[in-house]
């Protein structure tokens, strides 16, 4: 009967850090946190994080990492903007997604067939793609059609976001793409010896990551009003923070869950927004953010650790009998 208590606790506790933060900021911002304007503002920071995370989680679940997401989103947005100047708005999002997918394909092929570490390949891509964006824009600003700016309206952005997240959620939790990705993260050798085409699924994971980066890029252009070569800078790190703060294991495997990404993304966004709203000095904001991030994740891990220990004990107990 103890079990039930623990099981229930397991569902609530990952939210503990988030709850603490939300409560604390509700007090310090004197309720401003909950105004509709601000909730929408928080939502617009959450959207790219979750979209990017939904793609990257496939790679992370396999135990790899994709550092190229930020640069990929920038180049996808840039090229899409250029293409849509010539071909019209209809080509905008498809182009961005295609570019993202191509980058993912490249990453995936190098990682899977040439056995280069994912961090090395994607770091190189981070540097190279960013440089390409700078070259393409050549320092000037690319203006985009009004429709692209309209993408930033919540009435369009939210449906796009929901559809994309639902698809990714389905792929990750209910199809073999996600299942195999987690298996590869758990034990790649076992996956291979069980007959899973590991290379194929590595490529698929990177392609999905690229596609989502492309989508984020296309939305980003609307958000910042045109192509800016620095857009998406450090986006990959923000996504990773969201993933890991939510409790997705760095080594991947079956602990990777999309709901954890949600928690992470919301935690990070509320934290940033709350600190700014509380008028914390810009210098201190970063200091406090860093400390709280570390605190939240260690709290979550600590609690989970305790839980797992308890469960393990219960299991072995059962075995012995």
């Amino acid at each position: 009967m103890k079990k039930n208590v623990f099981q229930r606790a397991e569902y609530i506790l990952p939210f503990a850090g988030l709850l603490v933060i939300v409560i604390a900021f509700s007090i310090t911002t004197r309720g401003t946190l909950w105004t509709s304007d601000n909730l929408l503002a928080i939502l617009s920071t959450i959207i790219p994080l979750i979209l990017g995370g939904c793609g990257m989680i496939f790679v992370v679940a396999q135990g790899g990492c994709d550092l190229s997401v930020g640069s990929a989103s920038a180049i996808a947005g840039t090229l899409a903007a250029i293409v849509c100047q010539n071909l019209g708005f209809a080509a905008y999002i498809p182009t961005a997604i295609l570019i993202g997918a191509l980058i993912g394909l490249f990453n995936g092929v190098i990682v899977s067939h040439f056995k280069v570490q994912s961090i090395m390949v994607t770091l190189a891509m981070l540097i190279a793609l960013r440089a390409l964006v700078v070259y393409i824009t050549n320092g000037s600003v690319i203006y985009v059609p009004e429709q692209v700016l309209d993408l930033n309206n919540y009435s369009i952005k939210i449906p796009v976001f929901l559809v994309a997240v639902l698809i990714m959620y389905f792929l990750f939790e209910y199809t073999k793409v996600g299942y195999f990705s987690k298996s590869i993260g758990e034990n790649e050798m076992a996956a291979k010896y069980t007959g899973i085409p590991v290379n194929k699924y590595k490529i698929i994971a990177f392609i999905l990551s690229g596609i989502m980066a492309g989508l984020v890029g296309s939305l980003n252009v609307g958000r910042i009003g045109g192509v800016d070569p620095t857009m998406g800078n450090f986006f990959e790190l923000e996504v990773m923070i969201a993933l890991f703060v939510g409790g997705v294991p760095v080594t991947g495997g079956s602990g990777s869950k999309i709901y954890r990404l949600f928690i992470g993304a919301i935690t990070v966004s509320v934290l940033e927004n709350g600190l700014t709203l509380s008028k914390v000095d810009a210098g201190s904001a970063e200091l406090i953010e860093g400390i709280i991030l570390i605190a939240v994740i260690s709290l979550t891990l600590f609690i989970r650790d305790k839980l797992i220990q308890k469960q393990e004990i219960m299991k072995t107990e059962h075995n012995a009998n």
Partner: protein
Amino acid sequence: MKSVAEQHQKMQKGTKSKILTLVLILIAFLICNLFAHGRFLTGNNLLSILTHAVVPSFIAWGFCFIYTTGIMDLSVGAIVILASIVGGILAFPLGYFGLIIGAVITAVVLELVNLSLIIKLKVPSWVFGLGAAMVYEAIGTYYETFEIDQGKQVVSLGNTARKLGSAPWNIIVLCIGIVISYIIFNRTTIGFDIRAIGSNHSVASMMGVKSKKAILFGGFIGSCFIGVASAINESYAGRVMPVTGLNSVALVFIPLAVYLLAQAFERIFNLTISVVISAIIIESLFNILTIFGVPSGTWQDVALGTVIIVCGILAQKNEKGIVK
């Protein structure tokens, strides 16, 4: 079971591939020199390449002792900034001694704080590093804001203690670095312990390696290298500006590329040696491209990315195992 002769052949093959790689690099250099009308392989230019390779090499050596144990600490960039600043401040009253001691102690203290917290809290080092980077960046800006309010800028060395960062002193330090890092990494108990933990944590600790102690001690050595890198950086640049918004992470991208490249070359050269080789390859690349008139910031970076991937592929050519 393979015969000894076969294994011996394997070893010889190793020596061969070492020579082959060096020759290939040399040929590439000569070709570049030909196209650059002799502007590439001049003494001054080579010295300048080496000079630029010093700081990335030292940071990458730091990574050898920290990242090898599986701790991926991304706050090193922020640590370098803080260590450079502290070194710069202490350089005025104490000269070179202050510069080096200030930088090294700062780096060591911060890195040890990181490592012990990572071990204690069991937080994945990736996130911890990013969080710590935010904290250290913020400390840097506190100092900078303070200076601006005083009508000053972040500490600048001026003419004080600038020799460490310039030839020939930095090259001498680089050579000392090669020797020391090689010896510690390959010929000391701590080196073996670090490599053992990196390769297989549980087996290593079963075999009697005290892993926490080794990680902390490795972090101590690694952060000494990072401290020295910071001191050289400060002495070379004269001033290191604090940044915010995780921009410090970008600071370690090149050293990280050096380290990863070195890992890829590890089957040909020893890790600490290949660090220097990788650093020189990357810096020569920038140098030669500038000489060729390739615009920096765009095609140069594209070329760097390409070189990293190509080297990675070449080095992993025969890899059959599992790569993350």
